[in-house]
């Protein structure tokens, strides 16, 4: 049971994957794809196993207070922290969160003591505030700031001070009217998106009762509902649903992405860049031309390293050419000889696994 079943599995799947390469018709072409997608799910399971054993090892080290146990706490804490943030805030880079633009609007007009619904004064105040933010950022910095970064900074500066972006402030009165016009009271901030969709749902019911949907495919029904909803909304509020939605939502970068950008990435990149120092010290203390082969290796490396940087150009135009030649002829020849060897090795190793001569999957995993 513990040995024969795995042997059978390996044999059957191995032969099936070889045969599907040669026989196109059903079920073989479908077989290849479904089996490969299963492997992806199992690979995910294996990854989960890896993480589970990582957690187990570290928790055990903490439990037994073995030497260096506080560092295991760091590992477990950062693993759980990163995973929690990812599961709660989702793995996509950005998320939309609701913005209470009417409240921001009232705060803004009081601070600038503009009368309600006086659009020109509101616009003038906003333009003036944007201008001095732009001036303030440009003076403090000598490098030309990209327009995109500047626009984002103005939005975030407004967001911090007034609670919504300049564009949202301008359309705030419209949002306020829309909120007041809705039958159900919209006290909570994220009610606006739901209210807009409620309008769409009412259009759907109306068309359904009017019997507009007979003989239409699902796609056509959707298109009809969408079309009438867009017209109705534009007529009623002078803006499309998307703009109204835009006026009441703000895009924010998820903390999961923050963890990736400021924790994971710096740690990973720095760990690998340590190797640059070790290569340098090995270059001085260990790389010796003891044998003709090692000498040839160092000479080839010498030309490739020089040829691949602008310094090589600087020395002579032939240096990059020689580096290019080493890369395209001797390197290709050598790599090709190794690749053919590896290919034959892969064929024989795969063959031995499929026929059960070699059983690496039996190693470990209990008796």
């Amino acid at each position, binding site marked *: 049971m513990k040995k024969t079943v795995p042997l059978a599995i390996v044999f059957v799947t191995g032969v099936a994957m070889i045969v599907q*390469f*040669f*026989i196109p018709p059903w079920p073989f072409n479908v077989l290849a794809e479904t089996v490969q997608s299963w492997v992806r799910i199992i690979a995910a399971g294996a990854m989960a196993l890896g993480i589970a*054993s990582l957690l187990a090892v570290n928790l*055990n080290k903490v439990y037994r207070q073995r030497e260096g146990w506080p560092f295991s706490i760091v590992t477990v804490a950062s693993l759980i922290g990163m995973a929690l943030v990812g599961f709660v805030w989702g793995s996509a880079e950005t998320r939309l969160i609701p913005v209470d633009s009417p409240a921001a609007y009232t705060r803004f007009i009081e601070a600038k003591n503009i009368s309600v619904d006086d659009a020109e004064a509101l616009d003038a105040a906003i333009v003036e505030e944007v201008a001095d933010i732009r001036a303030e950022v440009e003076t403090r910095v000598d490098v030309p700031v990209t327009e995109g970064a500047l626009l984002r900074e103005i939005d975030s500066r407004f967001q911090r001070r007034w609670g919504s972006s300049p564009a949202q402030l301008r359309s705030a009165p419209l949002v306020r009217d829309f909120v007041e016009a809705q039958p159900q009271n919209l006290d909570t901030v994220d009610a606006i998106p739901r209210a807009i969709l409620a309008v769409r749902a009412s259009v759907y019911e109306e068309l359904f009762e009017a019997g507009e949907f007979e003989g239409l495919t699902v796609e056509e029904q959707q298109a009809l509902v969408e079309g009438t909803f867009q017209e109705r909304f534009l007529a009623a509020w002078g803006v499309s649903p998307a703009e109204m939605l835009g006026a009441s939502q703000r895009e924010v970068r998820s903390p999961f992405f923050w963890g990736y950008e400021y924790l994971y990435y710096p740690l990973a990149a720095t760990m690998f860049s340590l190797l640059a120092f*070790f290569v340098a010290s090995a270059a001085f203390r260990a*790389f010796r031309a003891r044998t003709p082969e090692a000498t040839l290796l160092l000479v080839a490396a010498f030309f490739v390293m020089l040829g691949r940087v602008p310094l090589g150009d600087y020395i002579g135009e032939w240096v990059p050419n020689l580096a290019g030649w080493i890369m395209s002829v001797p390197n290709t020849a050598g790599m090709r000889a190794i690749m053919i060897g*590896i290919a*034959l090795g892969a*064929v024989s190793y795969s063959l031995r696994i499929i026929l059960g001569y070699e059983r690496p999957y039996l190693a470990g995993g209990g008796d």
Partner: protein
Amino acid sequence: MRRLSAAFLAISFLLIPGTAAFSQNGEQAPAEDEAQMDGGISVAVSEQEQDILDDETTGPATADIEILEPIEEEPEPPVRAPPAPTNVDAFDTPNSAGDSVTLTWQPVPDEVDLGVVGYAIMRSKEPDGPFEQVGIATIGASRHRDTDARDIKAGETYYFQVVTLTADEQRAASEIVSAVPEAQWFHSGRWFILILVILISGAILFNINRARRGVDLYIRRIAGLESVEEAIGRSTEMGKPVLYVPGIRDMDDIQTIASMSILSHVARLTAEYDTPILVPNIRAVVMSTAQEVVKAAYLDVGRPDAYNPENIRYLTDDQFGYVAGVDGIMIRDKPAANFFLGAFFAESLILAETGASTGAIQIAGTAMPSQLPFFVAACDYTLIGEELFAASAYLAREPMLLGSLKGQDWGKFVFMIAVLVGAIGATVVTVGGLDPDVWWNIASWFRVE
């Protein structure tokens, strides 16, 4: 340990149905909730797409094809309608599962200034039945493969039309062609690779059986193996231990398995010379295997008392932690002979450098191409790629490895001959004046689709 992992498993069991339920709401709830669950992104996005969708859907799908036909007969319509694609042909896609038809056509001449945007591929079950768009080919294309496991069944006839699309919504449909897709039971383009797979597998299995039947297969002397004996001899003179690092992969990697058989040879020598052998490990399974191998070697030589399990220890699972540990052993115990045999990654450099700085003789061997340059530059002798496996076959005479190597050698021999014949053929064709297409159709047998 057991209590912890069991607890963890329980949590993961709760987690799976929990998230399934969590995702279930997403699936089951009407469109609004889904939008909400995804943080409204899909709503904002679909609005944007909605307007794009609107101008897209007014395209061919809903237009009624029959009305267009008469326009072409009129003399010269005010706006010059684009010409339809010519000599359209549809045929069963070769080597397919019977669910695919390939269409070829002559693209419209001077497409760009006619404003041609692409070609729509239309399909239907009846000759004049409603045509449905099944694909778009970009301008300049003259071939399209229409594959659809659901709608296309082998053996039934299907009718096709290729329609020129222009930027200003002009359309011109080609004449109607038909095809009957069938399933081919063997992929005609892959004969050669099948023969090759059979030949090579046959050579390997034949040699494995020969080796199993006790036939003594010749494997050439591996130069690196003398230096092993010499290094251990030097180590004994200086009264220093020998260090053996079996790589950082687990027992499921073939390089680690090969390393074990070389370890048993090295252990046999250290037993004879009565020199301690240190084997630091990164994986628990490799450690237990190494202990068994070394103990068996010491028993063979009749020195069971000299075997010391303490020297074959487990350090840590972490790559850089393991390297720091081995460096510590090199600096503290100052072994005079270091062996790095197995699978290595970026840490090979640090090991070889520290070893070189202690003045030890170093012999390395791995099949990882990216690490071989560092071993060759920093070590006294290096087993390159397959030499690692050849060395373990040479020492252990293990039939499976011996047979495989022999089979692979036969394969290499055949490939060498093929390259020679091919090169000579190519030379004769380019310079010698042999009629080129005689040569190319010979070479075409060896193609792989």
